[in-house]
């Protein structure tokens, strides 16, 4: 194996308008290695990889592939240089078969007939060589995500990729699927391929990579041999200073039950049961955390309790009233009337109308509250005053309630949502991924607020995929796997035990 690096980046710069997404990036990727790139959301990893794949062009800097300077103007050039990419959101045509997806762009001639039979053989070979079994004639929409991802890998290999970039590949996978993926990556490496693994999960970096580079705020801050570093060091490099994982809090003093969920089952639009016979309760003055790998039913559970999704069966008791969710028509407005606040997982998609001015978002969901109306018109001065109060109390910056919400940073947007939901003094607060894509300063602020809520005697149900967050905030931890609650633990429980539960190994047997 020669010493020429598979990929070398020199002084790469890329800006989107005022945002400097990549600044003076240097990177050397050894041939035949698995090279990890870690960084928080928004650190610039995906932008960098998109430059490498020709999706964006760098404003400045050089890309060298196999020691030769390359101008990668489009994906076609990247492919011809032997670079393949598995995108975070799969680039597949849902109503095409696996075969059709694989040959798209590499059909082998103007007519399909010849290319198809050759492709069939080649796919067979690739499936066998790399352990990438998928049915060639299956429709993509019928395949689970794990298999769809394999199709993406097959696509790259079919095009003769020597360098494979995977962007956050495990976000959508179950632990078992992720393990399988890592085995495939190992095989690829053994076959002499180079793998670039983009992730924000340190565990994965430690498990499979040979080398790891850390990005922070658009810059490449360090490169280490994986065997010579630790998760603690990487975490510190990622965020720029030691993270306070422990949240300062006193023991909880839970009182009466404020939310009781019994035998809740939810079926999604495809007819798949996503929440299966779930029962639990939340008491006043405690934070109940729901841990789990994303996609195990937590989101649907939260949305059902908030009245957004319909349940197939199950009852909820809130403020002493019991509602049969299958029989009663509930909607989010109704749940708000029962003093249930909801900070949704995805503030952009759900929690805010980003095109609205800040003050308009400050009443989203509460716009029918008579306080904000004067006759049949909205009382705009009053709404703005309320918004200004929240801005001050939650230190939302810039302090301008007329500013378009899209122009606030992620952390401040999250504070807008939080302020809106908390200031209504709910009995129960549902919180999903409160600190996703939020800067460190805001994280501490948000955590403190949640603890204050608890100490004020409210019940908080917290869903997060960040195990550390759950362990730091929650007083009780429920673990969800495959739509079921598979165990309840104290937050002091060993991380590996919780991890096993999240991976579906039942606590009782493990």
């Amino acid at each position, binding site marked *: 194996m020669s010493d020429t690096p598979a990929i070398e980046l020199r002084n790469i710069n890329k800006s989107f308008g005022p945002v400097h997404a990549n600044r003076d990036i240097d990177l050397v990727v050894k041939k035949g290695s698995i090279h990890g790139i870690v960084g928080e959301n928004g650190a610039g990893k995906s932008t960098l990889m998109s430059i490498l794949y020709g999706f964006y062009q760098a404003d400045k800097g050089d890309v060298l592939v196999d020691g030769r300077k390359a101008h990668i103007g489009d994906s076609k050039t990247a492919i011809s240089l032997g670079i393949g990419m598995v995108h975070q959101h799969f680039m597949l045509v849902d109503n095409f078969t696996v075969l059709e997806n694989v040959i798209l762009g590499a059909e082998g001639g103007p007519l399909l007939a010849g290319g198809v039979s050759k492709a069939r053989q080649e796919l067979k070979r690739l499936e066998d060589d790399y352990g990438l079994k998928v049915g060639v004639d299956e429709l993509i929409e019928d395949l689970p995500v794990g298999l769809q991802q394999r199709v993406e890998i097959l696509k790259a290999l079919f095009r003769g990729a020597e360098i494979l970039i995977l962007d956050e590949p495990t976000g959508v996978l179950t632990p078992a699927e992720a393990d399988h993926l890592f085995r495939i990556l190992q095989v690829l490496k053994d076959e002499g391929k180079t793998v670039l693994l983009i992730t924000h999960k340190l565990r994965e970096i430690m498990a499979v990579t040979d080398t790891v580079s850390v990005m922070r705020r658009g810059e490449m801050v360090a490169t280490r041999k994986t065997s010579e570093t630790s998760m603690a060091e990487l975490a510190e490099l990622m965020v720029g200073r030691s993270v306070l994982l422990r949240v300062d809090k006193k023991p909880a003093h839970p009182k009466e039950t404020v939310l009781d969920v019994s035998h809740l089952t939810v079926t999604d639009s495809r007819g798949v049961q996503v929440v299966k016979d779930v029962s639990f309760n939340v008491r006043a003055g405690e934070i109940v955390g729901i841990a789990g790998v994303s996609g195990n039913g937590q989101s649907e559970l939260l949305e059902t309790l908030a009245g*957004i999704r319909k349940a197939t069966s199950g009852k909820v008791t809130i403020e002493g009233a019991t509602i049969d969710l299958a029989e009663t028509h509930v909607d989010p*407005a109704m749940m*708000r009337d029962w003093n249930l606040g909801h900070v949704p997982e995805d503030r952009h998609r759900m929690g805010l109308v980003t095109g609205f001015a800040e003050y308009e978002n400050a009443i*989203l969901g509460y*716009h029918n509250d008579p306080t904000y109306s004067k006759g049949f018109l909205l009382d705009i001065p009053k709404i703005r005053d309320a918004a200004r109060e929240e801005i001050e109390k939650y230190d939302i910056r810039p302090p301008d309630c007329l500013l378009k919400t899209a122009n606030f940073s992620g952390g401040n947007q999250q504070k807008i949502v939080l302020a809106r939901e908390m200031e209504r003094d709910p009995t129960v607060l549902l919180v999903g991924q409160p600190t996703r894509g939020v800067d460190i300063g805001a994280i501490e602020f948000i955590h403190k607020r949640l603890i204050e809520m608890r100490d004020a005697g409210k019940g908080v149900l917290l869903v997060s995929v960040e195990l550390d967050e759950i362990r730091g905030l929650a007083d009780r931890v429920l673990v969800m796997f495959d739509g079921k609650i598979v165990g309840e633990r104290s937050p002091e429980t060993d991380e590996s035990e919780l991890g096993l539960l999240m991976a579906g190994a039942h606590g009782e047997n493990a």
Partner: protein
Amino acid sequence: MSSGQLPRWVDFGLIPVLNLIAAFLVSGLVVLLIGENPLEAVRILLWGSLGFGEGVGFTLFYATNFIFTGLAVAVAFHAGLFNIGGEGQAYIGGLGVAWACLALDHYVPWWVTMPFALAGAAIMGAAWAFIPAWLQAKRGSHVVITTIMFNFIAAALMNYLLVNIMVKPGSMQPETRTFEAGGKLPFLKEFVPGIDFGTAPVNLALIIALLASVAVWLIVWRTRLGYEIRAFGANATAAVYAGISPVRVIVITMLISGGLAGMMAINEIMGSQHRLLLEFVTGYGFVGIAVALMGRAHPVGIVLAAILFGMLYQGGAELSFEKPAITRDMIIVIQGLVILFAGALEHMFRPALIQFFTYSRSPAEQAG
């Protein structure tokens, strides 16, 4: 590349003006192509639409139609819906007006008939929008396509009714009898002393249109319903999270939109023609799309854009009279070009402008 990168005055002022200039430049080329002098044409057009009382009267008369259809499209825009059925809704709205006028004109003065005619126009227009709205809300059938289909169904229905049912007995013309005084809106010149609009049929409906503009502004920006409409249009998922019912918003918005389109018939049927006849809408519904786009879906912009299109209509008519080579079809060409440049190509100048304004700003400002 959305707004926000450009100063507001560029977004809402400069870009529409540039688009309009581009449309008029190409129109000028068309005039050249048929061997006439574009500058001369512009002169006649301006004079014809604004140069004398009757011209102004006609301009305002046409503008009245465009205000209604423009508002109709704009209201739907705010909910993220594209109602291109204004044509059919206005046509059916004519039925409501005609029924009220035919039933009452013998017995009562116009000001008693008017509220019934107005309600009839709005209700019939809204009714014609209801089925597409309901299908969109409940079955997910795209409102763009269904409203197109309903335009044609409306045309067939009106054709049938006017030829077979409502036709004046003994007449070969597919139209109703002419309304009596109790079914005629007064012309503006009758109650605004000192203004000479000549024979122009500009009438009370203009005032109604302006009131409707104010009402639309209030509804969209100042009521809970408007809040729900805008929230749903900007982010449907967030709207559901906020407890806003998509079905309710879609249906109510389309009813308002269809009602506004239907009210256009007041101006044509009760204000000017004084009888129900075939094809009185002739494109006003479609031009409403251009009016709404140019007016940035805001009532003030819509009124201005409507006056502009009114000038085109009236000035164009004058132009075809003065220069027979430039037939009235030229107006349709100009409308097409305005819709193209102000609507479909609205972003054409944006990248260049963004570059211009980014580089002309001081570095300190960029850092902030």
